[in-house]
């Protein structure tokens, strides 16, 4: 996934779309928006980042899971099998992005990149509703995909690359 931080206005549509699409319990969310103030007075500006699970290439959450409930699917999406999760919290501790939370039913829940939509060829809910079209979803392994081209053209960064998880959400500068 790639997100254009220059286009993002922090409206929170992605957050609401996700909550609706995935029936996220009240008070929780699988994605969220971070607002930062950048620059020095009087040259201040707001910086928005729509954040979620980074579906890392090197997943500390999957590594620490004692039951194998946390796993990486074939396409690289990180998921939790609810029936195998014991709710120990190891993956929550392991994630430097705080992308996981306890569902009120006990198991750990997180962003699935809306794999139920993706397998039908649709975009994840957050991407599909974005009013500024700042989010792009696609196959990073395919060099001809729109997202691969975008990442080649535009300067981009990832969040906390120093944590060593090889995050797979890219922010376009």
């Amino acid at each position, binding site marked *: 996934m790639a997100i254009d931080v220059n286009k993002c206005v922090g409206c929170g549509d992605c957050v609401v779309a996700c909550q609706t699409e995935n029936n996220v319990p009240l*008070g929780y969310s699988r994605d969220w928006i971070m607002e930062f*103030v950048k620059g020095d007075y009087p040259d201040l500006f707001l910086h928005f980042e729509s954040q979620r699970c980074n579906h890392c290439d090197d997943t500390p959450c999957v590594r*620490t*899971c004692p039951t194998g409930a946390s796993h990486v699917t074939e396409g690289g999406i990180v998921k939790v099998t609810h029936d*195998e999760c014991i709710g120990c919290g190891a993956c929550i501790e392991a994630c430097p992005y*705080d992308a996981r939370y*306890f569902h009120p039913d006990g198991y750990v829940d997180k962003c699935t990149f809306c794999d139920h939509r993706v397998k039908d060829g649709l975009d994840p809910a957050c991407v599909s509703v974005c009013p500024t079209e700042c989010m792009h979803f696609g196959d990073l392994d395919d060099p001809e995909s729109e997202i691969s081209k975008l990442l080649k053209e535009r300067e981009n960064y990832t969040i906390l690359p120093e944590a*060593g998880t090889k995050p797979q959400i890219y922010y376009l500068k």
Partner: protein
Amino acid sequence: MEKLLATDRNIDYLYPHVDVWGFPISSYLFLGGLAAGILLFAALYYLLGKEKDMPFTVKIGPLFAFPIIVLGLILLIFDLHHKLYVWQLFMTARAVSPMSWGAWTLVIVSIFSLLWPLSFIDSIDDYLVKRGWSNMTKVTEYLIKLEHKWLIPHFIIIMFRKYRKFFAFLMLLFSIVLGIYTGILLSAFNAHPLWNNPILGPLFLTSGVSTGSAFVMWLSENKKERLLMSAIDMSLIAIELFFIVHMFMGMEAGAEVYKQAADLFLGGEFTAVFWGVFVGMGLILPFILEAMELKGFHIPIVIPAILILAGGLLFRIIMVQAGQMSEYPMFP
């Protein structure tokens, strides 16, 4: 740059910092280390042929290990959010997950902690009566009853007695694994720089064994045994201090996040409780008291023993709490 807000992220255990593991986990780490220490000494002194000289260490101490482990397990399960699925831990063994290692190690160690005292059951009764702990013979009676009801097949006990040397060796090995695991469990999280250092395994093992020796020295009535445990404990405290200093040296020489982690203890909010209460009253003070005892001063042994046990628990509470506060800063 200042973080203003995070839309809809008011989950209290994620912000302002992760706070998922609390008192149950730190107490469990303490109990696991304590049980590991008790069993380690039992196996070690049995293998060294000191069964007669150190009856408490070899035979009676392990009697406490099983209830200690069970209490730890209860706390662990209590802390799970999806409790009914706990059996999933034992449907798989994952080499890369410290918690999976721990779950299996705990099963093995708790079997040992039950079989070991059972294999000594006759001499334990005599000891307890001589010691004036006649009430505790009820526990051994219960264990015998359990055994006779075939819950624990007798041939296993007979086999255990016959090959006790071999099993003692295994118990020594697994108690070390258990002791180290309590530290490795935390050091496997690179999202928390304070935990993410390799010295935590040996440090937790040393601290656990030290609480084990304090436990034995507290409850044993044999003067020689107490003095020996006291001397051993002093060297363990010295090793622990050495590890602690090295831990902070390593962090101070590390990247920014490691320095920030160390700062929690070097001027930050854990400075007083860590250096003053844990290092001062839980390590150095009992060290001095034990040294005085060895020099011939009369010190009630219960004082250094309790200080070390309480220090061990406090150390784990501090490490679990401070570790969760040590995170990578989420700024672009």
